[in-house]
């Protein structure tokens, strides 16, 4: 078993830990507090999450619909509106021109770092682009306040940016409905990256797209990341996308980060039973082996089970799992997991069909 673990190449590929990662999330707790006609509800959407994202990498975040990944990226982007509240923890960016603690910024400072330092690519491109205005107006509306160029200089800047992303500047004259879904999403990405942001949050950018155009949009994101040396936080529930795109991968379950490591390591050697199941149950073309779904359902975040939140569905659960929440521990180089069983003996967690 040990030999098998060692056979995974490590030191040369795991990047040397950088002095300061671009993004550090520490002990973040973000809850939804709903108070309606005397009924108080607290939904612990993000519960004690810590992670670091280095410069020049694509960090993947995977999780199901109620795993808290959306709330996590909202807090990272500083878009916290009631009823969502940050209860504890910090989100710090180390931008080239100085460090920023996102919760200590004034709304004015926050909007100053948006676009130029921190950018957001959303799922629905139609909601970003105004259907009755040409694309060029979208660029003017969103990007003009954030760049120094004006007038013809600005147009030249936009055109240069589009060309760099292999887009025809003619799209500027088009209306959103004249473009295909894939092209619209490319335009939104171009829009979000015009200021060469250091940090890009991509929230399910390809989920609404047809399979045929998905690959093109993904490679565009990869190219932008390499061109600008930015970091990308890429969120999707689609494990195949993670396998093909991301450098490191974090898995969320019921508001907690349960596993994190190099994407390849996570896929080849998952250290959390949940991840192990996710990967082994993926249907693949050419694979006829029967796959099983996971018993049970994700817990309610308003009333999560004690101990490890995965234990009611976990085939490996032991006594301690029901009592104590496992901490995130680095078991292999650069590969952390929050699982009592894996921490005692990593070999026990293995993909099960």
């Amino acid at each position, binding site marked *: 078993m040990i030999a098998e673990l060692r056979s995974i190449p490590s030191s040369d590929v795991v990047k040397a830990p950088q002095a300061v990662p671009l993004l550090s999330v520490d002990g973040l707790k973000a809850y939804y507090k709903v108070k309606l006609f005397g009924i108080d509800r607290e939904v612990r959407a993000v519960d004690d999450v810590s992670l670091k994202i280095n410069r020049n990498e694509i960090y993947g975040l995977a999780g*199901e619909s109620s795993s808290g990944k959306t709330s996590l990226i909202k807090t990272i982007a500083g878009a916290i509106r009631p009823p969502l509240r940050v209860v504890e923890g910090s989100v710090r960016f180390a931008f080239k021109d100085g460090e920023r603690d996102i919760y200590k910024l004034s709304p004015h400072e926050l909007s100053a770092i948006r676009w130029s330092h921190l950018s957001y690519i959303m799922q629905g491109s139609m909601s970003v682009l105004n259907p009755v205005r040409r694309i060029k107006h979208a660029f003017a509306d969103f990007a003009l306040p954030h760049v120094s160029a004006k007038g013809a200089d600005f147009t030249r800047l936009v055109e240069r940016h589009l060309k760099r992303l292999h887009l025809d500047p003619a799209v500027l004259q088009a209306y959103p409905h004249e473009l295909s879904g894939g092209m619209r999403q490319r335009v939104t990405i171009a829009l979000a990256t015009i200021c060469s942001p250091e940090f890009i949050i991509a929230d399910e950018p390809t989920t609404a797209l047809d*399979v045929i155009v998905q690959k093109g949009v993904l490679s565009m994101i990869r190219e932008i990341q390499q061109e600008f040396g930015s970091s990308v936080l890429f969120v999707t529930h689609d494990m195949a996308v993670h396998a093909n795109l991301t450098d490191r991968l974090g898995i969320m379950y019921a508001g907690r980060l349960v596993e994190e490591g190099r994407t390849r390591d996570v896929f080849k050697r998952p250290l959390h039973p949940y991840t192990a199941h996710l990967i082994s*149950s993926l*249907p693949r073309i050419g694979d*006829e082996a029967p796959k*099983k779904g*996971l018993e049970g359902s994700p817990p309610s975040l308003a009333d999560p089970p004690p101990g490890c939140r995965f234990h009611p569905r976990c085939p490996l659960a032991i006594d301690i799992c029901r009592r104590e929440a496992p901490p995130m521990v680095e078991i292999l180089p650069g590969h952390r997991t929050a699982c009592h069983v894996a921490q005692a003996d990593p070999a026990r967690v293995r993909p099960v069909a």
Partner: protein
Amino acid sequence: MRPNLLEVEHVNKIFTRGGFVSRRVNHAVNDVSFSLAADKPEVFTIIGESGSGKTTLAGMILNSLPPTSGQIRFRGKDLREIRSRRARLEFMSHVQAIFQNPFDAFNPLKRIDRYLFSAAQRFTECRTSEKAAERADEALHKVGLSLAEVRGRYPHEMSGGQLQRVAIARALVSNPSLIVADEPVSMIDASLRMTVINLFKKLRDEFGVSIIYITHDLATAYYISDRLIIMQKGRVVEGGDARTVLAAPQHPYSIKLRQAVLSVDDAWRDSSFTGGMPAIAT
């Protein structure tokens, strides 16, 4: 010889929009034909991207939309002849539907069990509420649930996977011979998806239900289908045995579609291991 379970013959659906001046014609389904045998239950998959006409086709098979031309026959009977409420109820007891979004498939303000009871009372001989409850329980057991778990509960109290299983049970109440499932797992979380997919296999193998599975996802199609057709802009571009077609597609569009599928296995095959830089950046 018994007539085929379902025959779709040269079916067209044309939507026209706009007034007299600017008339826009959308040929949503263009000359589609296929048939399902009566005595051989199978999972028949319709693969298509958005705008391929797959959902329109499903609507016509379910008799919710009339075809512009061509004929759809269920057990030899033209669906056009099914007009009266009685005939429609009779048809629905044989041909059932499962929808895409389990979170929207049940009225959020109503209890889930009402749909099961309604189906039992309308489609079967169970007139009393006790008989209907028995029938609902029976159907729920087929999907691994029981009435005790579902009774009196509201949709928001259940997960997407559970809701979709209740929806399948609801469709099973009348013991249909054909179920049309339009993207039934695209909104379901990964950990629960295979439970639902496996259920379709079980329906085919144990209860002899034929399933028309409509999807854009080639991997699950490969996993459960017996036969499939691939649609593009309303036309069937390729069809046949599922494994054969997906292993070696012939039509240029099918080839493109097959190549676009991101595979976990291929992710590292031709990458040079440099920080996980994958094969995608071509």
